[in-house]
């Protein structure tokens, strides 16, 4: 384990009521990256994040966050947005942000000063002295996100940050995440929505059934599947057919098969030599969703789709 990693975890296990919620999770989050944890509901994402933050202790395994094996010792350098948003309803927005900073060691006076600046910068200047209960859901969520960032954390952990946000606010949050990453902060977030991870993350972990099924870059995940080739020919049959891979299938008059290991060129040569009459040829790289289904299974993929559809 080196200091190049903001988060290092190996063999994390957590059991609730005899059921293993997390079953040997390993995670290595490089410092300064945006790292996504993908998985359906009940996969163990939240429990893993809570263990990494020291909210709960693992039954087995080791974790190190910003070089600390006791994560709470690094609490002043960590920002955390839980999945279930929580703010004191009667607290003014400015005080809520300053309070969250004070919990992480930021003096209240400085917290209030930064809160004013952050609220102003995010178009909520007029809401600074309004109680949280009087704000719209989106505004309250923004306040909580600003409270997560007010003390300038090196590691920002966001549990399902996009849930409950409309498209406009999702876009704003994506921009904010990129902005924080640009300052050198490490962003670790969990999500149901593969598209967010695909757009934002340098690296991802796919968790299903309490285990990490895949850990690596988004490209590595995609490489789990071979690119799909779709070929349309004028001739329906001929000696060139023997050049097509064995798993080729015909859908609506097009030949569909995985890109052969040797590349497309030998196949093209055979098709031309056999007068197949190539009308159309496309090679499509699989998306992260397909890779997720291939890695985590059809059931996990369906669960992710259902949650993504339920989101605003």
């Amino acid at each position, binding site marked *: 384990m080196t200091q190049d990693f903001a988060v290092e975890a190996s063999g994390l296990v957590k059991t609730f009521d005899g059921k293993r919620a997390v079953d040997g999770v390993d995670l290595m989050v490089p410092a300064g990256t945006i790292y996504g944890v993908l998985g359906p509901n009940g996969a163990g994402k939240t429990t893993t994040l809570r263990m990494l933050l020291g909210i709960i202790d693992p039954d087995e395994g080791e974790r190190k966050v910003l070089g600390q094996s006791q994560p709470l010792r690094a609490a002043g350098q960590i920002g*955390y947005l839980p999945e279930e948003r929580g703010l004191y309803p009667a607290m003014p927005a400015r005080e809520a942000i300053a309070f969250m900073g004070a919990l992480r060691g930021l003096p209240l006076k400085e917290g209030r000063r930064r809160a004013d600046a952050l609220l102003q910068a995010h178009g909520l200047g007029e809401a600074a002295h309004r109680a949280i209960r009087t704000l719209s859901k989106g505004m309250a969520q923004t306040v909580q996100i600003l409270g997560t960032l007010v003390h300038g954390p090196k590691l920002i952990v966001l549990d399902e940050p996009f849930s409950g946000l409309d498209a406009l606010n999702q876009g704003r949050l994506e921009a904010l995440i990129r902005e924080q990453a640009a300052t050198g902060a490490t962003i670790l977030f969990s999500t149901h929505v593969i598209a967010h991870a695909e757009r934002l993350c340098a690296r991802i972990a796919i968790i299903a059934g309490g285990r990490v099924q895949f850990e690596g870059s988004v490209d590595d995940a995609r490489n789990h599947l071979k690119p799909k080739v779709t070929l349309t020919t004028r001739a329906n049959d001929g000696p060139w057919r023997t050049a097509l891979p064995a798993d080729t299938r015909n859908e609506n008059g097009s030949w569909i098969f995985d890109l052969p290991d040797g590349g497309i060129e030998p196949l093209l040569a055979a098709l031309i030599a056999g007068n197949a009459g190539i009308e159309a040829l496309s090679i499509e790289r699989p998306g992260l969703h397909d890779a997720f289904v291939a890695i985590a299974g059809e059931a996990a993929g369906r669960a992710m789709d259902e949650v993504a559809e339920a989101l605003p």
Partner: protein
Amino acid sequence: MIAKLRAALVIARRDYVATVWSRTFILFLIGPLFPIIFGVIFGAIGSRIHQDPVIPVIGVVANGDDAHRLQQARTRLAQHFGDGAVPYLQVVTPDGDPVKQRKLLLDRPNVAVVLSGMPGHAVLTGSPNALKEQGDIVRLMLQRDVALEMIPIKRSAIGSSAGVVETKDVGRTNLARGGQLTLLILTMILAGMLLSNLIEEKSSKVIEILAAAVPVDAIFFGKLMAMLGMSLTGITVWAFFAVGGVAVLAPDKLMALAVPAVGWPAFIALGVVYFIASYLLLGSLFLGIGSQASTVREVQTLSMPITMGQLIVFALASTAVEDAGSLPAGIAALFPWSSPFAMLARAAQQPEIWPHFLAVIWQMLWVGLIIRVGARMFRRSVLKSGGSGGLWKRLRGR
């Protein structure tokens, strides 16, 4: 440790400010006024309905001739002022222990004072108020009786004569009981507020934000401190208005209070210390057990056995008032949850200070232990991922 303390202070400050700077706190402060106002209203209605005034009775311990002369004096006064204006006499002949005889007479219905020691050394025994109210009429009866000539009356006020020890004891017993009851009410109301505070935190989901930033022990301690601060604020305000109100409206009632055996300053200081100990012992238990609950209903269900247990503890501590040397009183002084009550009663009744030092050390040891146990329960159950399903599911699962 310093980081934990700092974190606890951040939480305590937030909770304290949020509680004290709210409109509901004003209601909380004026809450105790309602029973007083209703008491005064119903008391006034009751006194109007009750048209027949109770004529006080003077107990007389005297031989036949002395008693007869006094009775004649009373009759002459009644002819002059009217029968209802002069207290009746209830005469008993001297028999054995005069102190015991006076006490028995005072225990009879409507007997306000007891006159004894005639003819040479007349002594009037009763509470200071009764002595003040009946002293003049007794003096008048004795002066009107030429056969008795001018006999000086010794007024035996509470605490001023060894001969009326039993009267002084009654006052201190009442003070001990009152102190215990006040302690019980304050502890139960204020420690119970911790639960509602915890529920607010759980329902607003803030608890996870707190637990991710500071050790759970600091959350637990911060909450205890905040509610303790709020309680002491409330108690200070109530005490200020209660003492001020009585001092302005009925100063004689304040003066009539029996002086606690350890003296007022030590009694008040010990009262504060025993309240803090009692509050922390009960509050830690409430927080620890309350953290197991996931709904308000569960919290209410859980708080019921604790409340009942506290009443049993109070009943145990009451035995210390009746007989401080008894075995139950000793158990009450030792058992951590009843110890503050038993020792407060002792402070009212017995002058030694040193047992209180021992008791405070003993209670603080328990406070430390219970806070640790409560914090551990809190840490283990306040945040359980994976949908634990609440207390009942957990209980069934075990």
